């Protein structure tokens, strides 16, 4: 339900803001902007075999530079922590080890991406946009059981289409808020034990950020 609801809210917001812009007097078009966001992330697909709890531990920093009206190029780096506790189950290692106890699953991802974004109403108070980012990511996956920390670290390729809305706090304000939804997948694969395996890691991120805009 959550998965459906949030994109719907986002689309509604975009529609409302586009309509509002039709009547609004034009403000300024920024030349660049910087955003710090809080990122809530939902593991989806195979990744949810490992952790299926919403991650509230995440954030990102992004810079975007307008190269022509509406079109911006930019960078973004972020982080997300995922954590889930599994009640008493058995972990089997390849070296003859087996442990029955609570499993604490923990994953950590740091993506670095560059992307292109299109802003529909750059001079508007509310400016919906779409974009696509590509890059690399560093990742750690851990199963913590007692004093055992069974983990894997890896680098992968990440791609993430995104849709969002930038709200200026005033027609000429340098500050604004950014909300966006981002689907991402990376090429990291993972296999510990039982069904906690995935070949393609995917997630859905919802970002709420504070923006600083330059004219």
């Amino acid at each position, binding site marked *: 339900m959550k998965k459906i609801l949030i994109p719907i809210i986002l689309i509604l917001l975009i529609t409302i803001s586009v309509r509002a812009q039709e009547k609004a007097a034009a403000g300024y078009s920024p030349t660049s902007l910087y955003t710090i966001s809080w990122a809530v992330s939902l593991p989806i697909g195979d990744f949810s075999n490992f952790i299926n709890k919403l991650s509230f531990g995440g954030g990102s920093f992004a810079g975007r530079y307008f190269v022509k009206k509406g079109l911006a190029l930019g960078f973004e780096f972020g982080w997300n922590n995922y954590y889930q506790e599994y009640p008493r189950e058995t972990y089997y290692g390849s070296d003859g080890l087996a442990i029955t106890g609570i499993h604490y699953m923990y994953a950590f991802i740091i993506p670095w991406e560059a992307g292109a974004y299109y802003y529909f109403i750059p001079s508007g108070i509310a400016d919906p946009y779409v974009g696509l980012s590509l890059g690399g990511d560093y990742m750690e996956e851990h199963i913590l059981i007692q004093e055992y920390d069974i983990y894997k670290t890896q680098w992968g390729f990440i791609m993430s289409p995104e849709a969002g809305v930038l709200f200026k706090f005033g027609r000429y304000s340098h500050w604004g808020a950014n909300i966006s939804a981002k689907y991402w997948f990376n090429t990291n694969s993972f296999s510990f034990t039982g069904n906690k395996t995935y070949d393609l890691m995917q997630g859905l991120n919802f970002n709420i950020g*504070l923006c600083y805009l330059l004219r």
Partner: protein
Amino acid sequence: MNRNIHMLSKVAAVLFMFSCASYPGLDSRLAEDLVDITKYDVNTAFSQFRTFSIVDSVTVIKNGTDSTRVLNPQAQSLLAEITANMQARGYTLVNLKTGNPDLGINVAVVKVTNISYYYPGWYWDYYGYYDPAYWGYSGYGYWYPYYPPEVTYYNSGTVIIDMLDLKNAKIHDNKLYVVWNAYIRGLMTGYHTTQDILGNVDQCFAQTPQISAH
């Protein structure tokens, strides 16, 4: 501009603190109740063994020199449960002196609170622990033929079961190989009935299906 950068960096700092997910630390994970840790030697074929023998009492290792051997009803049921599991896997219980067992089983309960960290096999030399001479191999030492299980904290109370390869002792250069280890940890972290502990003995065997005479 500087003020704005300060503002952004403050927001970033607060956000970072807020968004760091936490998971339970080592102390809290170790305080968990009744955890079963086992490790077997992947190079040992357990089907080569047919018979076994088990110690006649349980060594209780306590702080200082209070260690002792006990055979109270709880210790008896612990030994009986291990025996029943071995028999269910097709091994025959034989007399140590007359039956020439292929496998030997040591059982200890550790209840120490004064030290929290130990190296692998630390309890082999402890007072009250059955030494290789008990199994007829005087002058031998216990030995892990594999990288020992990482069980380093014992102050929550632990049952330790060591399975010894007696059949091949003579070709192992004065070493009695420990081919399987089981640890039931958390005896002192809560209230446990004997039945709870016996259930965990069963789990130790259940998670090692390799132990089988067939």
